[in-house]
C-alpha cells in the first residue's frame, strides 16, 4: 500500500485542526471512546457541537488557548492509501515547527480562510514548503460557507494564489473549496458547491501520484555505527551499519570512502544478516568492504563514479529557529546526518523577504528568518545540494554548548569560488 505524508499549513484560525478532525471523523478513523471524551468536553464548554479541532490539539495550553502550538502527527488509512498528517501551527512564532513538518512531507495543504484570502502566513508557509522541497500543493479555501458558497470569492482567491505559486515556481496546485466545520467537500462532494466540478479533498489525496523514493538520485550512504562482534566465531568481522539515503547499491560496486578518499570494493550487502545483491533507499543495511580500511561513523561510502567532492565551504539557506540572532563570526556545530563538525559563519549573504520573495541585504538572522549564509567547516563534508538530493543536501545547526537545534540548513552550493572574506 502507498503512503502519503502531508502537512496542513495556513494562518491561525484558518481551521487546520478542524480540517484534520473532519478528515479523521468522516473517514471513520476516530474511535468511539475518543469521540465520547470529546463530547464530554463539549458539554462542559460553551459550544454546542463536537469541536473537531480537539482531536489534534492535545496539549493543555492548546486547549486553553484554542490554538495549535506544536506539530501533531495523525495517522489514518482508507482502502486506497495510508496517510501521515502533520498538523503544524499557524502562529508566526511557531513557524519553526512548520519547517519541521515540511521537512518530511510530500504534499502541503495550504488552508486559506475564504473571508481573509491570502495573508502573510500563507506566503510564508508556501515559501517554506517550496524551500523544503515540497512540489505538490492543495489550496484549500476553507469557510466557504461563511461567504455563501460563492464561486466568485473562490476564484478570486485562486487567482491570487496562482500569482504566488508562479512567483515561486510551483507547478502543481489543486484548488478545492471546502467547509471543514460542516464537512462540505472534505470527504464527500457537497450539494452546496454545485459549481465545483473537481474531486473532494480526500479523493484528491487518495489519487494524487506519490513521489516514490528517488532511486534515480546518486547513491548515498553514511555510516551510523560500526558492528564489530570480536567474538570467537567472528573475530575479524567489520560491518558498516547505515541507511541507504538515496539510490541503489550493488554487491561488487567500486566505492569510495569519503572524506578520506579511499577506494575499495563493496564485498557484501547485508540486510538482517542475509546477504543481498542489491539494496535501495531507504533500506537499513550493513555494508562490508573488501579492504581493511579505516571507516567510522560519519563517513560516506559512495560508488566511485557518483562520488561528490568533499568540501569545507558551503553556501546554504537557513531557517533560523531561535531568539538569539545569528551573525557572521558565530561558531556552531553542523550535523550533516551522522557527520558532525564545528563550523563558523563566514558571512550572512542575504535574507529572503516573505512578501516579495526578493533577496535583501542582511547582517543577521532573527527568529523565523530565512537567510543565505556562507559556512566553513572544520572537517570536510561529503554533501550535495538540496536541489540534487533532499537527504544529503540537508543539515541542522546546533549550539555547541546547549546542543539546542538552531536552524534547518539547505545546501545551495558545495564548491565555492575564492572566498571574498576570511574570518
Amino acid at each position, binding site marked *: 500500500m502507498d503512503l502519503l505524508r502531508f502537512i496542513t499549513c495556513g494562518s491561525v484560525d484558518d481551521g487546520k485542526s478542524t480540517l484534520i478532525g473532519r478528515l479523521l471523523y468522516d473517514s471513520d478513523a476516530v474511535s468511539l471512546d475518543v469521540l465520547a471524551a470529546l463530547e464530554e468536553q463539549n458539554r462542559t464548554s460553551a459550544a454546542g457541537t463536537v469541536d473537531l479541532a480537539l482531536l489534534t490539539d492535545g*496539549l493543555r495550553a492548546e*486547549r486553553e488557548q484554542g490554538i495549535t*502550538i506544536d506539530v501533531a502527527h495523525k*495517522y489514518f488509512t482508507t482502502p486506497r492509501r495510508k496517510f501521515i498528517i502533520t498538523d503544524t501551527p499557524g502562529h508566526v512564532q511557531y513557524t519553526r515547527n512548520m519547517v519541521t513538518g515540511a521537512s518530511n512531507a510530500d504534499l502541503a495543504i495550504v488552508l486559506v480562510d475564504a473571508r481573509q484570502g491570502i495573508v502573510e502566513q500563507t506566503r510564508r508557509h508556501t515559501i517554506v514548503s517550496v524551500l523544503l522541497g515540497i512540489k505538490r500543493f492543495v489550496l484549500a479555501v476553507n469557510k466557504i460557507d461563511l461567504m455563501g458558497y460563492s464561486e466568485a470569492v473562490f476564484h478570486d482567491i485562486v487567482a491570487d494564489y496562482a500569482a504566488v505559486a508562479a512567483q515561486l515556481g510551483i507547478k502543481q496546485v489543486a484548488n478545492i473549496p471546502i467547509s471543514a466545520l460542516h464537512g462540505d467537500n472534505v470527504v464527500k462532494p457537497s450539494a452546496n458547491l454545485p459549481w465545483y466540478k473537481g474531486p473532494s479533498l480526500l479523493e484528491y489525496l487518495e489519487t494524487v501520484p506519490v513521489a516514490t523514493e528517488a532511486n534515480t538520485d546518486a547513491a548515498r550512504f553514511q555510516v551510523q555505527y560500526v558492528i564489530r562482534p570480536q567474538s570467537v566465531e567472528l573475530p575479524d568481522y567489520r560491518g558498516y551499519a547505515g541507511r541507504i539515503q538515496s539510490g541503489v547499491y550493488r554487491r561488487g560496486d567500486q566505492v569510495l570512502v569519503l572524506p578520506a578518499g579511499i577506494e575499495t570494493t563493496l564485498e557484501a550487502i547485508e540486510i538482517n544478516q542475509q546477504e543481498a545483491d542489491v*539494496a*535501495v533507499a531507504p533500506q*537499513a543495511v550493513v555494508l562490508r568492504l573488501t579492504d581493511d580500511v579505516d571507516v567510522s561513523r560519519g563517513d560516506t561510502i559512495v560508488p566511485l563514479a557518483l562520488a561528490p567532492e568533499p568540501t569545507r565551504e558551503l553556501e546554504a539557506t537557513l531557517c533560523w529557529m531561535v531568539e538569539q540572532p545569528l551573525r557572521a563570526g558565530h561558531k556552531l556545530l553542523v550535523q550533516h546526518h551522522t557527520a558532525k563538525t564545528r563550523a563558523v559563519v563566514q558571512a550572512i549573504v542575504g535574507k529572503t523577504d516573505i512578501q516579495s520573495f526578493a533577496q535583501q541585504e542582511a547582517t543577521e538572522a532573527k527568529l523565523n528568518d530565512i537567510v543565505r549564509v556562507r559556512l566553513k567547516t572544520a572537517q570536510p563534508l561529503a554533501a550535495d545540494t538540496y536541489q540534487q538530493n533532499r537527504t544529503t543536501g*540537508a543539515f541542522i545547526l546546533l549550539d555547541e554548548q546547549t546542543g539546542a537545534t538552531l536552524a534547518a540548513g539547505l545546501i545551495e552550493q558545495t564548491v565555492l569560488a575564492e572566498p571574498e572574506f576570511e574570518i
Partner: protein
Amino acid sequence: MPTLPRIDYLDRLEAEAIHILREVAGQFQRPALLFSGGKDSIALVRLAQKAFRPGKFPFPLVHIDTGHNFPEVLQFRDQLAAELGEQLIVRRVEDTIKQRGLREPGGKFPSRNALQTYTLLDTIEEFGFDACIGGARRDEEKARAKERIFSVRDEFGQWDPRRQRPELWNIYNGQIQPGENVRVFPISNWTELDVWNYIQRENILLPSIYFAHERRCVVLPSGQLLAVTEHLTLDASDELTTRQVRFRTVGDATCTAAVESDAHTLEAIIEDILQAKVSERGATRLDDKISETGMEDRKRNGYF
C-alpha cells in the same frame, strides 16, 4: 541486472526504526532499552536484532517492574533475554517505595503506573543512562502525538512540550548537557495495526495473555473487564465473571483492562483490530481517564 527490491509501507517503518536505533548507538555513551515484556517492546527487540546483529546490542534491556505483573509476562521476559544473550536489568517499584518512603496508591485499583517514574529516574541515575529507548507510539494518545522521536528531558526527567527541539528531516539531534537525557521512540510513526502486522510478518512470539483465554475478571462500572489478581481488593458488591478475553496492552495489572475476544491467532487479532471501534488506550487504560491531560501531566513529570 537484478531487479530492485519493492519497499512497502511496513518496510519503510522498519527501516526508519532501525535507523533510529543505530543513531542511539552512534550518539550516546550509555543507552538503555526499556523493556516491559509487552508487544511494543518485544517488537523493539526484534528491530534491535536487525540493527545490530551479528554484534551484541549496544545497550542493556531495562525493566521497570511495578510488581503488579502477569506471571506469564515475566516468564516470557526472562526467557527472551536469555535466548538473546543480552543483559537484563530489573528495578522494582516496590524497592523505590521502601527506599523513598513513598505512599502506595490507595483505592480499589492501586495502580503503580505513576510511581514507575520514580524508579525510572533512580535507575537512570544509578547507571548514568543518557538515552532510554521506549516503545511508545504517537497514535496511542494525543500528548504522545506531539512528542519528538528524540525527546530531551532535563535532569528531573521532565518533558517541556513548549521547548521541544524541532526535528528536521530524519536528522536526530542527541547533543545534550550533563544531567540531561533523551527518551527515544523508534516506533513513533507506527499504529497499533502496524505493530500487529509486523509481529505477524516476522513471526514474533508473544506472551500468551495477548491471545484469547479464559480469565476470572471484575466487571467495572464502565463495563470494562479487569483481571482478578492478588493486587486487587475485592468487595462483596463486585461483579465477578469468567470470560474469554485477551489483552491489547500489557501494563500494571491493576489498570490494564482485558477485552472480550475469541482471537486465538495473530490473523484473528488483526481482524479484531480492523473491526474494533474503540482505541487501544481507551479500551484498556484506566489511568488516562483521570483527567483530560492525564498523559501530558505524567510525561511532564518524567514518565516514559
